[in-house]
């Protein structure tokens, strides 16, 4: 299988994401160091084969525990997660394709009607604006078809509080948007869903995160993908736009802010060298962070009233970015 070691991960300008290079690794049952992970891989293969043939889904944690029934125990979940990544690499499909999902936490809300394909719900339709807390992005939603859409853009938000505020302030109506709560780093299923909506429904995507290196990177991973998923394709949305909160916004909007920590600054220097940060905007904002040495959360806009971010900041940004 293709090697996932750091020196075999390259940035591909064509697909604008990380991909694996030409190095391959060989696992042999003759090798004492290989026999255990190879056995685990074969077990995982037979486990997900059974899963898919029965139309059931599982989670990463489930797989970790299920192994113990076969005296195949993994040392910890990190080890079983790693073997699942091996299986993805071997067969060139993401784990969602063989019904293994992470712990769901991401959510979606907006005027999009989907049609289920999962067993027992085939053909059933649901409008994603029908529940005011938003809908959890799980296996059923990930596999659904898009039936009808009245939105003309996607807005992805890092924080749950702000996602709820946007729904309350009826952003989905005012701006004809589908709202996505990434809950920190967006899970793969969410990234894949954003890509599908962006491709199939031709919707532009705008991303709002905290104004710090970590928030900035949430946006970047949605746009350019992660190094961890270099063995997979079709998870990134190269045309999505990072709209804020920028380092320059802290100054421009006089937001309450905190000083950057040493760790934050170290991370900024790392990102500065990362090929995914080659764009003009990224370089300008990294420079701005390093110059002002301040960071702010999305909630910082609340100093101007709860509706300010929706009524003033959001339209300004959408206008600037489109």
């Amino acid at each position, binding site marked *: 299988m293709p090697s996932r070691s750091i020196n075999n991960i390259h940035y591909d300008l064509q697909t604008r994401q990380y991909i694996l290079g030409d190095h391959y690794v060989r696992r042999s049952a003759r090798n004492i160091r290989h*026999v255990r992970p190879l056995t685990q891989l074969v*077990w995982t293969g037979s486990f997900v084969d059974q899963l898919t043939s029965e139309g059931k889904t599982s989670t990463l944690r489930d797989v970790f525990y299920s192994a113990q029934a076969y005296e195949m125990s993994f040392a910890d979940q990190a080890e079983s997660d790693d073997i699942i990544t091996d299986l993805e690499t071997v067969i060139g499909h993401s784990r969602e394709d063989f019904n293994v999902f992470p712990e769901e936490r991401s959510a979606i809300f907006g005027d999009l009607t989907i049609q289920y394909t999962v067993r027992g719900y085939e053909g059933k339709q649901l409008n994603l604006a029908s529940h005011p807390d938003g809908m959890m992005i799980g296996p059923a939603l990930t596999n659904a078809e898009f039936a009808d859409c009245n939105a003309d853009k996607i807005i992805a938000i890092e924080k749950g509080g702000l996602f709820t505020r946007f729904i309350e302030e009826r952003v989905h109506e005012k701006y004809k948007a589908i709202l996505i709560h990434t809950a920190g780093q967006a899970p793969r299923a969410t990234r894949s869903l954003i890509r599908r909506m962006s491709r199939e429904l031709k919707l532009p995507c705008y991303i709002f995160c905290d104004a710090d290196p970590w928030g900035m990177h949430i946006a970047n991973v949605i746009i350019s993908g992660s190094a961890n998923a270099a063995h997979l394709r079709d998870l990134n949305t190269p045309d999505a736009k990072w709209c804020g909160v920028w380092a320059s916004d802290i100054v421009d909007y006089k937001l309450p802010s905190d000083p950057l920590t040493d760790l934050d600054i170290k991370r900024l220097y790392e990102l500065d060298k990362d090929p995914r940060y080659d764009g003009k905007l990224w370089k300008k904002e990294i420079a701005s962070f390093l110059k002002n040495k301040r960071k702010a959360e999305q909630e910082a806009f609340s100093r101007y009233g709860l509706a300010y971010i929706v009524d003033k900041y959001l339209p300004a940004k959408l206008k600037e970015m489109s």
Partner: protein
Amino acid sequence: MALQEVFQEISAADFFYRNRDIAGFTNPTRAIYSTIRELVENSLDACETKQIPPEIYLRISHESGATDGPGVYRVRIEDNGIGIPHDIIPSAFGQVLFGSKYKLRQTRGTFGLGGKMAILYGQITTHGTATIMSSTGPTKIHQYDLIIDIQKNKPTVLKHKTHPNENRWHGAIIEFSTEADYTRAMSKILDYLMETAIVAPYATLTYVDPRGRLYRFDRVTTQMPKPPEETLPHPHGVDVETLKRLIELTNERTLVGFMRTHFHRVGRTIATSFLQQVNLPTRKNPKKLTPEEIVTLVNGMKNYKFLAPDASCLSPLGEELLEAGIKKELSPEFIAVYQRKPSAYAGFPFIVEVGIAYGGQIEAGGGIKLFRFANKIPLLFDEASDVSWKVVNTQVDWRHYKVTSDMPIAVFVHICSTKVPYKTVGKEFIADRPDVEREILNALREVARRLSLFLSKKIHIAHDKHRLDVFQKYLPKIALFSTKLAGKSKQPDVSPLLKSVLRYESEESEEDIEDA
């Protein structure tokens, strides 16, 4: 009135009585240990002189006083040695510095007062008499009850009688009371006896302790090392005082003759050439040397390249006996012994013998156990000051020999010499003389090399077993899961694969060795 200082001559016995620390009789704990040690060593020497396999019986019994502190104990030792001619028994045991040890020969003790110091200490702590019975083999056994007159350094015989000797027994029995803190000394005494058994595998030692417990160390061989021969002093090891004494004794009329007669490996040619170099006339009468000339002679001797001392006067244990001793007391899984060729320091010949053992009764953890011996005596105190300790712990790179500190490994170092280079008068540890240090290091490297071969084999076997375990665990699972995954029902048989695991591994092991 002017104060007058009183000068008083003291006897040898008096001197040692006042300075008993020197001879290892510091306190009741050390005293009983030293007593046992001196008695056992005298007995062993008495047997080895005539190559009699030693049969030694030792008993300590409690007489009075405390048992958890200093009390009075009775000590008895019996041996089957050559015995002592009856007319010199009183002097041999009742006069300090009387003995057979003031010649240049490898012996266990060198004070010439070991046994006597023990008796002297017993006498001053208990006011008791010592009973000595001995025979050299004829029809009578002589018994003396005696005390030492400390001020005169003379024995006082209280009783002398004879017993018939029908069995033509030869040997000696010594019995007396002494003050001792046995409880504290016990573990050292037992260590001492066990280590003596290692270094004298041809001896049978029987010990009955104060609580009536029997300890027995049986001989495993009757083969004994050749007894040491007496030798002349080597010129390198001579000082002014020794030279003066020799001049007093000599009957030679010329310096050449004097050099030839009284020094080790000096012949006419060497003597002539040496005397020319120090500018002394070869025909000069040695008794007419001026003090300045004597000093010139001694200094010249130190610098002149004489022949190295010959080691025939030494009595090493030999590889076979050292191995037998270690095996019998520790039954190790692996053992290697090695004897270096004779070498010399400052005109004194010496031989280093070493052993290394793995497993058996050697405890694991806490690093390498060190057993030190000098002239067949176990050395138990002040280990960290000894040259062997320095070599084992700071000079040998054990990692190079695959040795780790958690392994059950013991190292044995035996140095024999006409003059063991002890660092202090206590004679418990050996000075780090460069010649001695080098010999120990080279000897240890040799046995460590052999140990490392054993260890790599052991590691390979463990490695192979581990591999088989791993493949045994996983191959059947691969067969099971891949059968399921392929949708088949009949599982392939992995047992032929498991058989090939070891064959395959042994090939790989060979590669590993080549790499190393």
